[in-house]
């Protein structure tokens, strides 16, 4: 060690020496480096070989070709991608489903741009985006053929559930957080009880309750489709978690801010809307992004209450006689779709965190 340090002081360290210091400072560390590098290379090679080198591409590949090649059989995706993306949506109308997905993705991307972070602009983007989605998917107006919710499916349905969950859950979470920090004991305790009860239950149980139990409890004039009930359940669950995140953000706002506003005679709504919430949302931003990521992943649970979202349509895509062996390819493809969404969202969250760390310095 010592001699190494001395020689480094005399001559500028060469590349070899740098590498040695980095990966082989002690024999044990060297061993760890070699094993890790070997493992990494093995995983990379196996993956490359399976997914590309000995894989079968294109819609022409048959099941027999795939078995012979030994690698991934992407032909199943080439043949069945429509069911994965659009589910049981009428074949001739699937362009509408595709456009609706594009509209939702554009809406999500737009709301990630800081200049859209004004309450009214955000609300406008989301309401317009959801309306476009809804009109495209459901039809019945503008000469589009009517397609009922029971025929929605695939990625389009997953995106709808995510967007609707956020649209219900986010405003509700602000309401719940404000009610919970109310000075009135009955209101704050009651809201706290609701939030804790929802948080202590698994999401699956809540989805199940809203799909199966709630129709018994609603009066006739409130009966809606199962999809909307389940989405409301998911929104409630999202709101219970998000409310706690916002509460944490509110607690991070210095007490003096509210006191100063009160001393100036600013009313409750202005105080909350213009002073407390903007600062609280800023504190809560990283955790909020994380909650959106979790929310997106949890849309997949609706498969249990019988919806044909992307995972269920994936099961259907390989479930037919010819392709039953190709479950790996289908799951890998769906995992990739989820990964692209959640990973880019969480990277975006990390970027925001860094950005805020700089501006608050």
């Amino acid at each position, binding site marked *: 060690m010592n001699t190494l340090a001395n020689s480094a002081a005399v001559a500028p360290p060469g590349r070899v020496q740098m590498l040695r210091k980095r990966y082989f400072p002690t024999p044990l560390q060297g061993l*760890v*480096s070699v094993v890790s590098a070997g493992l990494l290379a093995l995983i990379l090679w196996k993956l490359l070989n399976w997914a590309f080198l000995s894989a079968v591409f294109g819609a022409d590949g048959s099941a027999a070709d795939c078995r012979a090649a030994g690698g991934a059989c992407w032909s199943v995706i080439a043949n069945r991608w429509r069911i994965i993306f659009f589910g049981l949506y009428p074949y001739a109308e699937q362009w509408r489903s595709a456009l609706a997905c594009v509209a939702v993705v554009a809406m999500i991307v737009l709301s990630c741009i800081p200049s859209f972070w004004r309450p009214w602009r955000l609300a406008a983007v989301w309401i317009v985006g959801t309306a476009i989605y809804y009109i495209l998917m459901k039809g019945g107006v503008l000469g589009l053929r009517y397609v009922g919710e029971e025929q929605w499916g695939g990625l389009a349905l997953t995106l709808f559930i995510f967007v609707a969950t956020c649209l219900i859950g986010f405003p509700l979470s602000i309401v719940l957080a404000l009610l919970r920090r109310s000075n009135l004991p009955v209101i704050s305790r009651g809201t706290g009880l609701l939030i804790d009860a929802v948080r202590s*239950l*698994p999401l*699956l149980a809540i989805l*199940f309750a809203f799909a199966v139990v709630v129709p*018994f*409890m609603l009066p006739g004039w409130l009966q809606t489709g199962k999809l909307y009930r389940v989405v409301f359940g998911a929104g409630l669950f999202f709101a219970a978690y998000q409310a706690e995140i916002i509460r944490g953000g509110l607690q991070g706002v210095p007490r003096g801010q509210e006191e100063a506003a009160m001393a100036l005679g600013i009313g409750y709504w202005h105080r909350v809307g213009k002073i407390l919430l903007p600062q609280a949302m800023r504190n809560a931003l990283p955790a909020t992004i994380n909650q959106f990521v979790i929310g997106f992943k949890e849309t997949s649970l609706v498969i249990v209450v019988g919806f044909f979202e992307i995972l269920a349509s994936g099961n259907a895509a390989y479930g037919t006689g010819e392709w039953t062996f190709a479950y790996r390819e289908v799951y890998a493809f769906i995992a990739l779709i989820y990964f692209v969404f959640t990973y880019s969202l969480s990277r975006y969250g990390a970027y925001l965190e860094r950005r805020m760390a700089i501006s608050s310095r």
Partner: protein
Amino acid sequence: MIRILRHQKVRNILLQALFVAVVLVVVVGGWRNAQQALSSQNVVSGFGFLQKSTGWDVNFSLLPASPNDPYWWFFVIGIVNTLFLGTLGLVLATLIGGLVGIARTSSNELLQLLGRLYVDFFRNIPLILQVFFWYALVTNLPSPRNAIDFGPLVLSNRGVYMPALNVGGWHVFAAAVAALAALALPLWLRTTRRLATPPEQRGALVWRVLAGGLLLAAAILLLGRTPGSPLIDAPLLQGLNLRGGLRVSPEFSALLVAIGIYGGAYIGEIVRGGFKAVGKGQTEAAHSLGLSPWQTFSRIRLPLALRAMLPILANQYIWLIKATTLGIAVGFTDFFMIVAVTINQSGQTLEAIGILMAGFLAINLSIAAIFNRINRAIALKGNQLRS
């Protein structure tokens, strides 16, 4: 009138009364609607159905079960199944998470990269997708005739077979309790302040307790052994099926693997956060006192990191227990699935949902209580997590 409304106190009382009224209308209205709807379907409300026999069976149970058993017994089975899967999942996830966390905090960049790839990959794919994947993987394994030998394990599409002890179930349980006590009691004896002898002089006692407990466990196992059979029962191919050994069903193994891997990614991040919270000065001080790297790790960094991560870990454990409800997706009879099937079969919707809520509330509160106790027991005086 308006002047009265402007009065702060009056307004507060009115607002709260309004809140209570809304809640009451929603709850009472929902309850009455449900009662009417259910009674029109000839469902008798109340908990009398708990005594009726179910008429359906469960596919996995640690306790004896038959379709003649009453509903309350099936709920007990469901809770035991959930706790069993949850506990094994927690242990597996904690082991994986510990390894991943240590890899991510190591000074070796290649190891860090491995850990990061693991976390990024498994955390960004929904758990239910991973459960489906592992389930499809197990059910697509070769039939028992061509089963894959994987060390002591035998893998086939009927499940994973592993060597088992030829010992009755209750004896295994009792032996496990004795062995756990033999390991846990010495730890307590070494640290407790309730005994008169000072901790340094308890060495002999500790060893005696340890040896005694392990001997007791071995004795229980030998006692409960099925006479005239080998102690260890390995799976063997007989005809078209595997005989002997312990069969872990595809459902259970898929859930366990998925929960372990997915939970491990999250716990790995918690472990990393815990180590990051330990101030650099602590490590530097330990080095300057001449402690070896291992001593620095085991005596300084690990205990401090554990304290920092415990509260977050408790939340994660509660989450993992709740994740066992995914059993319904592949047909594992956990607590939630039993409740769902009960609602389907008996129509006792409100009661079953009430039992579900009570069950999960009890599980969550007990985990929280255990962790609060641990947290209080090991809490440090003052703040030692500073840099």
